Each structure stands twice: as C-alpha cells, then as structure tokens.
C-alpha cells in the first residue's frame, strides 16, 4: 500500500480518531437507550435493555482503546487518502447518491439510464454510439428480468406510467 504520499489529503490519524470517536458516541447512545427501557433484572428475567447495554459498554471500551492508541500513534504523517484519490472516490460516490435520489423521482429504470450515460460520458469519454446500447440495454434487460420473468416490481416513475405501468 502506498498510503504514504505527502501531497496533502486527509490524515490517517484524524480519520482513525474520528471513527473511534463516532463509535464511542454511538455506544453511548446504545447504553442510554438501553438504560431508558431498562437494563436491569425484572421479576421474570432480564429486561429488554439488558443485553444491548453491555454490548454498548464493550463497544465503548474497545473504541476507547483504539482512540487512545491512535492518539499516541507516531505515524501522524500517514495519509488516509490523498486529494487526487479522494476526488476519484467522490467521482463515483456523488453520482451514486444523486442516482439513488433520482430513483425516488423517476423510478429505477429511467434513473439508471441517466446514471449510466452520465458516468460513461464523463469518466469514460465514450461517444453516443457506445453509450446508447449500454445505457438503454441494461435497464431494458433488467425490466424484462424483474417485471416480466421474476414478477418483482421495482420503483417506477412518470415515464413508465406513460406506457401503462
């Protein structure tokens, strides 16, 4: 792994601390809610929060160890991900998030077509002749597979409604 590049980016230590901290916060939430519903012993056995409370406790302790180890770690210059690589991660993450939002509005088939075309155009630099068969063919195949063969309805939007689905 060559995570040692020094051209800026997010530090490994910071992310390690952040994640351990987040797990500790989550563990506190788990313990708090378990306390609320009762983590003690009722007349007929353990209460609903009994088991999760200890799960939260162990989770908190384990992350406290990770947090402390990260804090004293000497490898402070190690980079979690450098800026260039982080940009390429975002290059697929952001469109994916927009795509999932798009499924709400347009249904999965239309959203997939747009998503595939966008990605192939922007990141692959393909021409329309290459994009069209993939971006139209994949959703069409999925439509036949799910709606016709397996009879599993997937989210549909206004365009499918025009065709009576």
């Amino acid at each position: 792994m060559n995570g040692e590049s020094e051209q800026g980016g997010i530090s490994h230590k910071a992310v390690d601390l952040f994640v351990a901290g987040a797990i500790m916060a989550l563990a506190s939430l788990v313990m708090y809610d378990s306390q609320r519903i009762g983590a003690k012993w009722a007349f007929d056995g353990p209460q609903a929060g009994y088991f999760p409370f200890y799960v939260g406790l162990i989770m908190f302790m384990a992350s406290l160890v990770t947090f402390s180890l990260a804090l004293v770690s000497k490898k402070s210059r190690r980079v979690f991900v450098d800026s260039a690589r982080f940009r390429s991660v975002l290059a697929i993450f952001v469109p994916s998030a927009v795509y999932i939002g798009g499924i709400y509005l347009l249904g999965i088939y239309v959203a997939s077509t747009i998503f595939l075309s966008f990605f192939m155009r922007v990141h692959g630099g393909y021409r329309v002749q290459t994009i069209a068969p993939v971006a139209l063919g994949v959703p069409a195949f999925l439509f036949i597979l799910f709606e016709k063969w397996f009879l599993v309805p997937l989210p549909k939007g206004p365009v499918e409604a025009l065709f009576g689905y």
Partner: protein
Amino acid sequence: MAESLEALFHGFAVAMTFKNVGFMLIGILLGVLIGVLPGLGGANGVAILLPLTFSMEPTSAIIMLSCIYWGALFGGAITSVLFNIPGEPWSVATTFDGYPMARDGRAGEALTAAFTSSFFGALVAVLVITFLAPLVAKFALRFGPPEFFAVYFLTFCSFVGMSKEPPAKTVASMMLGFALAAVGLDTVTGQPRMIFGVYEMIRGFDFLIAVIGLFGIGEILLTMEEGLSFKGVSAKINARVVWQTWKELPKYWATSLRGALVGCWMGITPGGATPASFMSYGLAKRFSKDGPQFGTGKIEGVVAPETAAHAAGTSALLPMLTLGIPGSPTAAVLLGGLLIWGLQPGPLLFVEHKDFVWGLIASIYLGNIVGLIIVLTTVPWWAAILRIPFSIIGPVIIVICAIGAFTVHNAMLDVAMMLFFGVIGYAFKKLNYPLAPLVLALVLGDMAESAFRQSMIVSKGSIAIFWSNGLVGGIMGLALILLLWPLIAGAKNKLIPKRT
C-alpha cells in the same frame, strides 16, 4: 457412517433432477461472473440474488445460491492469475505465484492448477461435512441455551484471536453488529429498542442491506480510489495443458492435503477462507524444498492457497447447518436465506428436513464437478468480461446493488441505507476494521441474545451457569483462551525472542 452414505445417496436423488441441475449451472455461471467482477463477491452476490429465490422451492433455491458461492470461489482465481488483481480477498495469496506464472506464458498451467486444487479442497471439505456433520448435529441435540451461547461466544472470540486486525477494532466492529441487530422490536418483551421515535426503524437493520453496502459499494469505492486499469495476460487453456498439469499435480499431494486440512479447520472455526489461504501458502513455503523460490511462479504456490480457500469456503457450511452458526459472511447470508424460507438451521434441521440437508450436501459434490468443468472450458470469456472498462462496469454494478437492496423489502429507505453502509465499509476497510465479525454479529445477534437471556432466566441471573458442567465450561474456557490469544501471543514473543 453407513447411515451417512445412505442419506447421501438419497440426497443425490433429490439434487439430480433436471430442474436442480439447471439451477446448478445457472448458479455456477453467475458465481464465476460475480467472482470475476470487482465489487461483487460471494457474500453480496448471494445477498442480491436472495430475494429472487423467495418464491422458489427451498431445496432448489439453496442449491442455486450455494453454487453461486462455489462459482465465486472458482472465479476469484481467474482475476488473480491473469490480471494480478484478486477478485476475492481469499485469492490474494494466489496472485503471488499465479501471476508470475501467467507472465511467463504459463497461464493455462496456473489456472488448471488453481481450479483443480480448488476442486480438491472442496472435495475434502464436503467429505468432512458428509461424515462429521451428522455427528455434530446429533451431539448438538443435547445442547441447551447455555451451550448454544457458549458456542456463539466461542465463534466471536475466535474472531478476536485469529484476526490479523487490531483486537480492539475487531471487538468494536463485532459489537456494532450486535447493536445494529438489537435495533427494532425486542423478540422477548416486544418493546421497541433504539428506534428514537423513527417508526421505520422498527423493522431493524437487515443484514442483507448491510452486506450489499459494506462489501459491494465499499469495494467499488476502494476500486475507484485505486484507479484500476485492467492489464491482463491472455489465457489459452487446451486439453493438452490441462492433462500435463494434472500429471504434475500429484507430486504436490502433501501441500494439497495440508492446505485442505488448514482450510477445513479455518472454515469450521470461523477463521474464514482468507486467513486459511495465507496460512496454507506460508506453510507450503516453509516446508517445500522450493520454498525460497516461491513468488517467482511456482505451481505449488498456487496449489496451496487455492486448496485452503476452497476447503474453508466449503466447510464453513458445516457449523452453519449443524449449529446455525455460519463460518463465513457468505455462509451467513445463506443462513439468512434458510431463516426466510422458514428453515431453522441447527441440529434439528438434520432430523426434520433430511431431504433439504442431504440434497444440499449432494449438490456440493455435483456443483463442484460442474464448476470445475465450466471454469476449465470458459476461461477466455471471463477474461474478456474483465477487459470491459471500469467506467462501464462500475455504474452497472451500482445499479445492480441498488436493485438488490430494494428487493429485500421493497423499501427505498434500504437503498439509501445501502449507500450509508458502503461508506462505513470503505472507511472500515481502510482503517483495518474487519467486516466479517460485524456481519456475523448482525446475523446472529438475536439468536445469541436469546440464548443468553434464556440461560440467565434458568440461572436467575448468575453467569456461573456457563461453567455448570464440563461441556459448557470447556467451550467457554476455549473461547476465553482464544479471546486472550493476542495478549498471550504478545507475552510469549516478549519472553521468548523469535528465532529467525
């Protein structure tokens, strides 16, 4: 023994129907495809396809799904050898000698060795399942809640002890899984837990969504980061190469056997296929007279990890079927499938659903034979699929993951959740948090909790019940040793300086 054989033959009758062999073929082909593509692996591949099998008959469904798993195990080797890119984590060790062989123009030989070794590993593992599983199941019939909790405890402790990741991170990841499993209605009292007023949360977190996100989306993000461009070696396998490799392979019987045994052990105790493959490679390197030349393209260096990986992957089904405890994330997904079809895995499965169990075991034999033939004959196709650029295949995989997540409960919230788990998967992988304990805890959380609570009710709140007899005490003792293993090993290294 004779009983097992009789049951097995009955199983072959169940598995050998025209329809089931068809599902087997489809499963293997899909599995190899999944194994070859980045971002789709055994666990999330099976998770995505699981909803499609809800309407199928359970025996056919599990035959198809388990064949996807065998296919994925075979498929991982193809990318390792031809492209130096492990398609699956357990085929990382295969790249060490497989890729140098391919570069020297011996790709056909390397692939034949890999596939044949995989097949041998699976064969040993399924023999172990055939003869050991009924015994384990019969033995486990005597288990009460404390024994079951002790076995769960052992499973999770062995993760801490065997894992290469930092123990604190393994524990945190595991507890996160338990906490997520606890969200929703409490199965005993019916009280909602940790839903914080959000009504949709009452369903809890579905582990299928978590698997698709953690392994699928997480892997895509990692692949994107590494900026993969596939530069592969072309492969030709013909009958002559296969035959010549087969003639050479028996020379490495000791390596194969050792690999198979390491694999079976690591699969049954949930070490998993990945550490098994590394361990077997390491052992082969130490014991082989060609040891120092490992890494330059030794066929033995392909035989060792592949045998172990496939043996571990296969034998992971033994604890899944007999105790209801999966030995690997993919076995966990299969277990989830059993639960959805209304089959409670565990010792009673062998009594109440004989057809199902033995049909599945017979299909492991058949599936691996079919798999070996298919991969040996179709390698060039898969290599061609790998040459499709990532800017096409990447978004297609995301679309498939989204559909897979949606179809689990027909819920859009799950698709958003999948993306969220994807981010967790990406961050956890980069920070060395292991994902397998999280998934297993999420699957087993409710069962482990109810075993614990039942034990507590029996003992009126005293944990002394876990040492109340030799059996449960022994299992707990073993578990504690494994849990403290990182400390023990650390102390040992300090006291006795390592010989080099």
